[in-house]
């Protein structure tokens, strides 16, 4: 076997001699690798923030509401569904052994003010104490309200992290009074910082008041959902139980469809998987396309290179180059051009992922992806170089030496 080091040296020398051409040729590869690595970075970042968001929705929590989160049904089929009622909570808790906790959650938007400061458009949740379990909520300062306070309709409020920051810049909010419209509430706790859900909904921009209080002050009707925490070993059973209970409560006949929805984190997961597939598919499509185009470009330039260097090939053969060594030299040349493109692509992608990390969402380019990219570009290089190198290797030295 012809010394690999020498072939490498020759190949690199030839590329160096045609820097600009090699650089331009490799653009397709650069774009291909850039596409695949950036896509990978994007997906890894999405995964990360998705998983973080999903931690707000427990895997073992069922969300019972009027509509499905991602409904495939037509709106007119589901618009007449009856509202979810708070009475269901007790029935579900008493009739299914898999249910660990259940809380009704109702919500409206309101402004909360304190003196001159106003927190505008805060989501006011009315719920029971079991919400602490279904929503994985931790209280930073102070406490959550008690069942007694809930039942008696006490004017106490637990505020989100952002609300606390707006209204109480440098003070401890616990024990202070805030106003919501004409009602005065006493702040008893501040929820820990939770961030945004799927990068869109700010969970810290809310306040929680007892369910009893909510119903007394605002409305007994309106939108409501039930959050049910179930035994995580029996999520499916719990779902079946609850479906049966609700169907019975609503008097649905066996042939009728459910007129309520039991949502789960899985719904988001499925939705997310679909989206990820779309992003991944697009990325791979772009990648394959540019790699094919790039590969053909490289093949083309290698054919040109072989043609141009016919004389050189003749000389090398005359002084003892075997077909194998010529093949190796040109293959390595194609390989290095592609590998160089791959490197440039990866480096650009590193820059790109840094920008994504800084300005869009936390993400990092997976190192395996960088390695895979380089392997892919090497493979493209070898495939693209195969035909031209073979042509060079098979060249008749006499013809080649005579070539002008």
């Amino acid at each position, binding site marked *: 076997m*012809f*010394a690999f080091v*020498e072939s490498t040296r020759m190949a690199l*020398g030839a590329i160096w*001699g045609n820097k600009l051409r090699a650089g331009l040729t490799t653009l397709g590869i650069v774009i291909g690798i850039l596409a695949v690595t950036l896509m990978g970075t994007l997906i890894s970042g999405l995964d990360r923030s998705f998983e973080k968001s999903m931690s707000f929705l427990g895997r073992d929590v069922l969300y019972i509401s009027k509509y499905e989160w991602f409904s495939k049904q037509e709106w007119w089929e589901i618009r007449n569904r009856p509202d979810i009622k708070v009475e269901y909570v007790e029935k579900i808790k008493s009739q299914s052994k898999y249910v660990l906790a259940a809380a009704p959650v109702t919500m409206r938007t309101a402004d909360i003010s304190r003196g001159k400061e106003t927190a505008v458009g805060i989501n006011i949740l009315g719920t029971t104490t079991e919400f602490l379990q279904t929503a994985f909520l931790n209280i930073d300062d102070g406490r959550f309200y008690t069942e007694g306070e809930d039942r008696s309709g006490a004017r106490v409020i637990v505020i989100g992290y952002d609300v606390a920051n707006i209204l109480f810049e440098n003070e401890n909010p616990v024990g202070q009074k805030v106003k919501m419209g004409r009602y005065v509430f006493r702040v008893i706790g501040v929820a820990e910082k939770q961030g945004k859900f799927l990068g869109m909904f700010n969970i810290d921009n809310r306040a929680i008041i007892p369910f009893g209080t909510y119903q007394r002050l605002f409305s007994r009707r309106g939108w409501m959902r039930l959050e049910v925490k179930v035994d995580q070993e029996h999520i499916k059973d719990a779902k079946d139980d609850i479906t049966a209970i609700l169907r019975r409560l609503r008097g649905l006949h066996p042939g009728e469809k459910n007129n309520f929805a039991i949502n789960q984190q899985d719904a988001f997961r499925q939705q997310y998987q679909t989206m990820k597939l779309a992003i991944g598919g697009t990325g791979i499509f772009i990648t394959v396309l540019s790699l094919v185009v790039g590969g053909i470009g490289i093949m083309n330039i290698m054919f040109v290179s072989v043609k141009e260097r016919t*004389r*050189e090939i*003749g*000389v*090398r*053969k*005359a*002084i*003892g*180059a*075997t*077909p*194998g*060594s010529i093949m190796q030299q040109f293959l390595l040349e194609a390989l290095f051009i592609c590998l160089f493109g791959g490197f440039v692509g990866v480096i650009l992608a590193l820059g790109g992922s840094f920008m994504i990390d800084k300005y869009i969402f936390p993400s990092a380019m997976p190192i395996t992806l960088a390695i895979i990219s380089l392997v892919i570009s090497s493979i493209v290089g070898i495939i693209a170089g195969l035909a031209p190198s073979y042509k060079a290797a098979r060249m008749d*030295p*006499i013809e080649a*030496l005579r070539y002008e």
Partner: protein
Amino acid sequence: MVDLIKLRGVKRYYDVGGEIVRALDGVDLIINYNEYISIMGPSGSGKSTMMNMIGCLDSPTEGTYEFEGEKVHEMDDNQLASIRNRKIGFVFQTFNLLPKLTALRNVELPLIYANVPREHRLEKAKEALEKVDLLDRMHHKPNELSGGQRQRVAIARALVTNPSIILADEPTGNLDSKSGVEIMNVLDDLHDEGNTVILVTHEAYIAEHAHRTLHILDGKIEDDVRNNRPKTKIIIQEKNTST
């Protein structure tokens, strides 16, 4: 002792668009060590094919070719490459140096294909350049050298593997007469040092440097003449004509 080169009934036919061209049509030839041979003939005579055949760039359609006992006519491409590398030093009319490599790197090239380790290669390449008196130019690229110097680099490249024959195809064809003389002196010296030199030329005064001249016509050796003229005389003649 085996003959250096032994051709027996060598034929080389080409198929050019359905027509058979008999470039070599039955050649018998023996060349011994330290011969100084010139091959002459008009264009189309088969002279080039003869050279390619001796240089192991081509294989006979028929007949046998033995190089120091090795059966060239049975060799595949890799074996041919190997024998060219080890045993034959080519000198071309158009020099055929690689333009992007320095003189030293050009001379080093055959040793790379011979898998000689790097340190040895440089050492040997320098030795070869010293023989053609170009050590001071070893870091120059071909386009920084004169025609005569380029051909001397090419000769150094041919010498560097210590080949059994030096095969020079019109070595002075692209040179002015002064450089031509210079190159012929180098070749003469190489022969004097014990090398076997084969010249292909159509210039009679170049052919006269050799001690044996083969005249090729229609793919056959028409004449095989030994000329015993003293070399020095010719050189003086040439020097006179070139000034």
